[in-house]
C-alpha cells in the first residue's frame, strides 16, 4: 500500500508539473519519463533476474516501427496500430527468448546484441519498406475519446504519456513484488536451488525477458507518437547500452533507481548535446565511474548512509547480479 501511495504522489506531482515549466521542458519530460519506464522494465531482467541484455532497444524500436508502418502504409487507426506494434514486439520476444536465455552471462549479451543489430540492419538497409536512414515520418497520434482534449497539444500528450507510464510503473511494481517477481530474485541468486524447489527456471527467465520487452514496446510506442516519427535511432545498440547503464547507475534491482537514472540520463544528454559534442564521453565516464566508485548505483546511496550509521558493510547486491564471479 505504501508503495502504491508513493507512486500516486509522484504521479500527482508529475501531472502538475506542466504548470511550472516551459513547453520545451514539457516535451523533454515526456521523453524522460518514457526512458525512465523503459529502464525500469529492463531492471526486471538485469537487476532482478541477473541476465544482461544489450539488445532491448530492438523491442522498443520494433513496436515503434510496427505502429508507424501500419499507420502510414495501411492507414490503420493509431490505437490499433499501437496494439499491433506492441503485439509484434511481444511475439518476437516470445519466439526468441526461449532460445536466448539458455545462454548466460556474456554469451547472452552477445546474442542480444547480434539480434538487435539484425533488426537495426533491416530498418536501415531495407529502405523500400522501412525508409532506411530516413525512418518513417508522418505518424499520426491517436485521437482521444474526450473530444475537448487535443493530443497535438504538448501538455495533453504529456498527460497522455504520464497516464500510461504511471499504469506501467504500477504494474511493474506489482509484478516485481509478486511471487513471480520474488522467484526472479531467486533465479538470480541460485538457479539450482530454484530448480530444487520446483521452479521452472527457464520459464521464469523467459518471463523476465518478455516482460522487459513488453515494457520496452509500450515505451517505444509512446516515443514514436511523441516524435510522430520513428527512425533507426530507436533500434541503435547505443540506446540499449544507455538503458543498461541507466539500470546500473540507478541500482540494479531497485526499480526506482533505474527509472530516475533513465530519465535523468536523457535530460543530461539533451542538455549536453545542445552545449557540446561530449555526450558520448560523459556517458562513457559515467559507466567507468559507476563501476569503480558506486557499484550498487544511486539506490545504494541511502543504504550506504544508513549502513554507515550502524557501521555494517553494505550488502553486495551489485556483484551478485553478475551471476558468477561475485566475490562478496
Amino acid at each position: 500500500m505504501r508503495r502504491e501511495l508513493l507512486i500516486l504522489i509522484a504521479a500527482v506531482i508529475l501531472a502538475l508539473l506542466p504548470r511550472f515549466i516551459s513547453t520545451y521542458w514539457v516535451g523533454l519530460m515526456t521523453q524522460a519519463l518514457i526512458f525512465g519506464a523503459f529502464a525500469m522494465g529492463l531492471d526486471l531482467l538485469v537487476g532482478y533476474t541477473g541476465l544482461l541484455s544489450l539488445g532491448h532497444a530492438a523491442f522498443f524500436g520494433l513496436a515503434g516501427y510496427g505502429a508507424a508502418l501500419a499507420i502510414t502504409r495501411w492507414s490503420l487507426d493509431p490505437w490499433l496500430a499501437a496494439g499491433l506494434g506492441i503485439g509484434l514486439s511481444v511475439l518476437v520476444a516470445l519466439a526468441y527468448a526461449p532460445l536466448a536465455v539458455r545462454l548466460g552471462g556474456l554469451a547472452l549479451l552477445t546474442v542480444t546484441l547480434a539480434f538487435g543489430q539484425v533488426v537495426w540492419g533491416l530498418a536501415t538497409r531495407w529502405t523500400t519498406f522501412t525508409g532506411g536512414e530516413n525512418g518513417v515520418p508522418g505518424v499520426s497520434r491517436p485521437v482521444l475519446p474526450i473530444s475537448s482534449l487535443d493530443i497535438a497539444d504538448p501538455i495533453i500528450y504529456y498527460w497522455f504519456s504520464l497516464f500510461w507510464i504511471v499504469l506501467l510503473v504500477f504494474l511493474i511494481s506489482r509484478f516485481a513484488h509478486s511471487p513471480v517477481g520474488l522467484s526472479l530474485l531467486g533465479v538470480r541468486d541460485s538457479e539450482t536451488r530454484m530448480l530444487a524447489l520446483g521452479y521452472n527456471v527457464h520459464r521464469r527467465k523467459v518471463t523476465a525477458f518478455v516482460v522487459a520487452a513488453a515494457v520496452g514496446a509500450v515505451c517505444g510506442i509512446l516515443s514514436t507518437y511523441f516524435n510522430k516519427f520513428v527512425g533507426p535511432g530507436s533500434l541503435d545498440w547505443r540506446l540499449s547500452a544507455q538503458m543498461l547503464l541507466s539500470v546500473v547507475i540507478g541500482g540494479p534491482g531497485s526499480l526506482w533507481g533505474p527509472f530516475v537514472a533513465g530519465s535523468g540520463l536523457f535530460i543530461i544528454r539533451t542538455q549536453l548535446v545542445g552545449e557540446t559534442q561530449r555526450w558520448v564521453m560523459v556517458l562513457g565516464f559515467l559507466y567507468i565511474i559507476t563501476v569503480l566508485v558506486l557499484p550498487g548505483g544511486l539506490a545504494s546511496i541511502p543504504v550506504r548512509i544508513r549502513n554507515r550509521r550502524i557501521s555494517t558493510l553494505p550488502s553486495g547486491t551489485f556483484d551478485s547480479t553478475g551471476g558468477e564471479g561475485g566475490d562478496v
Partner: protein
Amino acid sequence: MFDANGGSILTVSDVSVHFGGLLALDRVTFNVARGSRHGILGPNGAGKTTLFNVITGFVSTQAGIVRLNRNDISALSPHRRARLGLVRTFQITTLFKDLTVLENALLGALVRLGHHRNALRAARDDSQAIALAYEQLEQLHLDHLADMPVQQVSYGEQRQLEIAVSLALDPQVLLLDEPTAGLSHAETHAVIDLIRNLPQSLTVVIIEHDLEVVFQLADHLTVLHYGRRIADGLTQEVREDPVVREVYLGTD
C-alpha cells in the same frame, strides 16, 4: 519377486553415469523404504553426490531407471521431480543470499500452495504463504531471524535454513547432502536433533561423511565405493559387513 519393493517409495535400478572416461556410477541399485531414514555412505569420490544428482534430475542417467512411487521419473527435469515431492538440499549452501530468511522459506511455501505463478499480488500480502513459511521457521527455531538477509546469519543457521526451505515444500522424500558438513560440534547436534524430529511419514535420505552422524540417524545404509554399491541393508548389518569395514571403516 514381483512385490519385492512394495514398501519402497524410491527405487534406483541399474543406474550408470559416465563423465567422459570416468565411470561415476556403475549399475547402482537400491530401494528406499517409505518413512525410513536411509543413509548413503562412501569415501570421497564414491559417487554419492552424483547419485543425488541423478535421483533429483540434475544429472541425467545414461542407463538405468529412477522410480518414485513406482513411476518412472528418469526423464523428468529437476523442477518436475521437486513438484512430485522429491526435494533435496545441497552440500554447499545454495540459499538466496540477498533475500531474507523469511523470503527464502517463502519461495518454498509459495510452490506448496500453488501461488508461485501469481504475478500481480504482492508476495508479502499472501498471508497464507507467509504463515506457512513462518511456521516452517518456527519449527526449526529460525523464526527470530526471519527479516535478516541470509548473508548475515551464521553458517550453522544457513544449513538449518536449507532444510527449512526444503521442508516448506512438504516433500515426500527429503534428500540431505551432507547436512552437517563444516559445522561445529554443537551445531551438528542441533542439526541431528532437527532431523530426528522430522515427521515419521517423511522419508529422509542422507549423504553423510561423519559415521557417528550416520549411525545415529540412519536405519538403513547403502555404501558406495568407486561408483559401485558394495553394501546395502540395515545399519546394524552393514556396520558388521567385512567388505565395508575394510574399504571404509578400516580407513578411519
